[in-house]
């Protein structure tokens, strides 16, 4: 256990946000979910009460007799926001006093630093380069992430859950978010920041980042494992494997949606275009962890090798 190394990594000003991320994200996820479950219980209780059902009412501090049904923004919301603003200002000031901008040495065109890392918010993308070829990881996926975020309002046919925390009413959306943001995006940033050392090799926390470290790793393409040598064969084989994955993912996603009646109801409200778009995005999103497992566990470089692109 190299504590010196661990401290060096954790205390680098550039890495401090990531360390904070490690604590803050689980906390707020838990906090949000707690509120959601509380609301769900409340909703169930209110639905049972014919007086209260179908009325507008407060969800965070459930209404009780004698209380106002609605409260004004000023002062009841703004004073809390003001307090939050003050606390945030204090945090930012202390942060900017204690941690300086992590400037490094002048760039040297003849010498690339090792490891050579992007700013922390891009580290997820950089980590993706390990699993896909640069065209995919650098261009296609980032564009698809943006497009995917843009289409969310257009494919979301669930009218519930606006303005209050709920789990029950937005199960699918919450799971998609937790998977896409936390499991993929945040964890890849954490891996890129804390785990990847010299030579972009995998260093468990506490291992010394040794520039002399050598690892033996042979990554092969899937067609090669199956002994497919010619190009056409590789293209066909890869296409078939990717096709199988797509079908399997499609079925899996579909099964997840139609598991309960609520999901079926939402599905029924979706047009074919909305459904197809959603499936496409989810299939692509799922491909990332699949490829990560193939690479990290089975040491497979590419599945589908063509002269134009590699997947």
């Amino acid at each position, binding site marked *: 256990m190299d504590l010196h190394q661990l401290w060096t990594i954790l205390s680098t000003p550039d890495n401090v946000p990531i360390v904070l991320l490690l604590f803050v994200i689980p906390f707020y996820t838990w906090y949000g979910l707690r509120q959601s479950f509380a609301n769900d219980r409340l909703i169930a209780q209110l639905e049972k009460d014919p007086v209260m059902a179908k009325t507008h009412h407060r969800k965070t501090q459930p209404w009780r007799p004698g209380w106002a049904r609605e*409260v004004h923004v000023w002062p009841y919301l703004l004073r809390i926001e003001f*307090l939050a603003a*003050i606390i945030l*200002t204090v945090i930012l*000031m*202390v942060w900017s*006093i204690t941690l300086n901008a992590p*400037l490094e040495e002048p760039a*040297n065109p003849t010498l690339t630093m090792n490891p050579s890392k992007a700013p922390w918010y891009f580290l997820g993308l950089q980590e993706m380069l390990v699993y896909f070829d640069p065209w995919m990881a650098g261009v296609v996926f980032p564009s698809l992430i943006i497009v995917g975020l843009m289409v969310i309002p257009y494919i979301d046919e669930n009218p519930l859950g606006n303005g209050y925390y709920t789990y029950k009413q937005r199960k699918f959306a919450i799971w998609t978010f937790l998977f896409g943001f936390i499991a993929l995006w945040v964890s890849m940033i954490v891996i890129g920041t804390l785990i990847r050392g010299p030579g972009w090799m995998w260093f468990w926390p506490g291992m010394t980042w040794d520039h002399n470290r050598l690892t033996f790793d042979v990554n092969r393409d899937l067609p090669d494992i199956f002994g497919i040598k010619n190009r056409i064969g590789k293209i066909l084989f890869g296409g078939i494997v990717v096709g199988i994955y797509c079908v399997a993912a499609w079925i899996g996603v579909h099964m997840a949606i139609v598991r309960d009646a609520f999901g079926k109801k939402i599905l029924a409200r979706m047009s074919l275009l909305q459904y197809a778009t959603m499936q496409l995005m989810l299939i692509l999103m799922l491909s990332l962890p699949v490829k990560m497992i193939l690479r990290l566990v089975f040491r497979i470089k590419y599945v589908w090798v063509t002269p134009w692109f590699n997947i």
Partner: protein
Amino acid sequence: MSELEEKDPVVNSSLARPMVIASVLLMVSLAWALWDEAYATRPWKSYQSRFVKLYSSYLKTARPSAEDAEKKIRASSEYLRLDKEMQAAEKSVLAKVTEIDREVNQVLVPQSLALNEPFQEVRSSIGALTYQIEVASSEKAKQSLRAEIEEIKKDKVTVKLPNPDGSMKKVEYTFPQMDKDLLDWKAKKAALLLQRVELMKPASELRARRDKYLSDRIAEVSNETLAGVERKLAAFSPGIRQIHVKDVDLVDRCESCHLGTREPVVLTKAAMGGEAMFTSHPNKDLLKTHDPEKFGCTPCHGGNGVATSSVDKGHGRHKYWLWPMHHKENVEAGCQQCHSGEVVTEMGDTLNAGRELFRLRGCMACHRYEGFDKEPEDLTGVNQQMRQLEQQKAEWDREAGFTIQKADKSKDNAEAQRLYARADDLKVKMSGLDAKIEQLDIRSRSLIREIKKVGPSLKEVRSKLKKEWIPVWVKDPNHWRPGTKMPVFRLDDEEVQAISAFIWQAGVNGKVPPQPQGDAERGKEAFETRGCMACHSMGEGSAKQGGTFAANLSREGEKANYEYLVRWVHEPRERTLPYCPYEKKDLTEEDYKRNGAPFVFDLEHTRCPNDGHELQVQQMTPMPSLRLSIEEARDIATYLMTRKQANASLPAAPYLDDPKLKARGQFLVRNYGCAGCHEISGLEEEQRIGTELTREGSKPIERLDFALLGHDAAKEGWYNHKGFFEHKLKDPSVYDKGKEKENKLERLKMPNFNLAKNEIDALATLLIGSVEPNIPARYQFKPTDQRQDIIEGWWVVRKYNCMGCHQVHVGQTTVFNTLTRYQDPDWKDQRPPSLIGEGARVDPAWLMRFLNNPAQEEKDLNRNGVRQYLKARMPTFHFSDGELRKLVRFFEAMSSQAQPYIAQKLDPLTEQERTMARQLFSSEGAPCLKCHATGDPNHDKRATAPNFTLAKERLKPGWTKRWMIDPAMMAPGTAMPSGLFQRDGGRFIFAGPTPASFQGYQKDHADLLVRYMFQFTQEELSRLRASAGAGAGR
């Protein structure tokens, strides 16, 4: 549920407490931010206030003594006299000066001022009209405007002029009158002021003299300066102090904290309350040549000149700052960046020591470093140029032939003539090439002579060494001879055997004639007095004496063969066989016989009998010939053969003749780079095996292979260039630690030099300083004047260890100064002469001849040319032409002598003057001949000073005169008496009794003697001898 919980928390809960806490925290963080901004990131502020406090209190203690000293001077009679004279002079002209001042200040100036305004007004209106004339289109309009101007000029203006008593008078003026008056007054004022200056002149001269008297007598800083400093401190305002050199975009704020650096008062650590950061720069002379306003601080010292937020950042001791401040022991690393072509840099002792080690210990044999050991490279370059020129010549020759052919065939006469002219041109150009080639050829011959190896030649081991000694030595040279130049290679026994066998078997079979034994007693005496010990040392441990330039010879008898040693002492450069670089082989007698040539090779016979190429006819050693007789060489060799430890014995080594080991040995010798330092058969063309070090200091730290020690280095704080170099030098195999390298050849090869701490510091200084210069070329020291001669000369002076015998610069000690024998007053005069001022002393042409042949004689070489009374001998170095030129230029430049030297013309002597001078020369009062040699063997036996009959060729007349007048000033401790002459008005006269003939002689006596010496003839010598003999007889 309780009452309280019934209430709506959104409406009823109070946020007052969190709001108060948050607000307080906000205020605290605001205060923290302000404090951080004002003080924490500006630590220089507290340094500045501390500096002011310490400095002021120091001045309070320093000032009274300075004041006292100044008061005393002000009270001295001389100062008072000067002051009184000055006052008197001022008083004598006071009345006139006051009158002038009154006239100027009360009449002329107010009147001019009063008149000036109306004058300007009229002039401006005329000017405007004149412009209108110039741009007017019709002649008529111009005429009317001109008339208008005339009108204006005639107009009368009433001007109020002040009288001296303060009243006003009204005067009517036209424009021309105003103009005239103003000019008159101006002229008058100028005349009056000039007159005033003239009147005041004696007084101001006296004042200047008085002030100079004062300032000359205050050693350090005057009271006035101190007062100035105190005033400055009282008005001290905190702020960044920065040097900004615009043209190199350099900003250094070092002086924001190091405020004492350039103070006029010398501030020591003690004076500043033990704070080293406030002391003055320790070397003010250095700052004189490197003005901080022009050079800044960081170009020399390193560090981050702009950073002011913390000490570590300012000093650049930060992971990401690539140019950290040099540590104290390496501070001279900063010099190397600009003084990279030098081997000796003034005031850079550590750096010079590092360069000397780099040369002497043979670092340069494995590592290329620009400037070091450059002769082989230069030789390659010259040969290449020669080949190119020869090619060019052949091309032109062919073209000339074609042109002539074309001209012969051309039908047109003019065309033919043009072509013939062209062919002629080409031929003339070819002859120009011939001249160039000839020069290059001379240079290449010079260079072959200049190439030296760090270690001895291994070609002659068979005749030179005891066979069994080789493996003992190869195994651990430092054990056998502590402090030897040869480093310890980490060899196992198998490698030692193979290497020794190869060296033994690769030796050539040269013939060494048998020699009879000499006398060891006499040999010892000769060894200790002839000058051997300027380079070699003798004795072990604390008994060690002599120079470190060459080997310690205490155990010479255990390893050497007597016959070879005699030959070596007699002429170290003599080879048994010459080497032909073209054929890459050692020539034998056979080669000569086959070509019908006599088997003779020396500096006059340098061509290969097989192919005419230049041969290596000398041993590549810097060791010179002392021109000893063969008998004396035998004595010394016999003495050296007695130098051995008691019961010395060497284990038998039969494997040395095992031919099976040869190939393996050669492989290893090549692998370890032995041929870098030694001349070895078959490996003459080996390249350096190490990495180039010219820019090692700016190699990115990532490229320095710390191997497995990188993390420890980072933790222990030596993950930087300094740390890398120091650890490597201390233990060259340190970066193999923990590495799994089964194949021995993969391991680090650098041998262990057993360097002491100060040696490591010196070498590390050189390496840290070996950086890519990051300042413009014009800041680098690349002089084009005589200073360049000094730079080049030092390389030669160091190469041949001139400083072992001679003092070359002020403050240097020679090896002779350290030898016990030469501490005896009788032996002090036996030390070789100092060469300080040599360039001013001797004629450069003579110096060239002398360096070429210090015997100054063609046949009898067994002598000193100038100081025949010295036991130590100026050796023959067989300098090449290039080295001779560099040395002569060096000495001339060191004494600031103009190039080329044009001898001063002296007035011819009259017959009477000659007689007078001769009489003076041999008179009782001036016993010149008592010490100075004359070339007469009988007389010279007692002589202890140079032969003055050589003076006219050897010396410069101006120097000779200065020397005769005050030799002790030029060479403190010289035997030549001072005070021979005394000043008499504008001339020097002899101080002792002069012969009668000097009655009424009005010219300079020292001049007379100089002229006499420089117009000396052979006849005069015999006359002088006769008269001196007569004098002695009396």
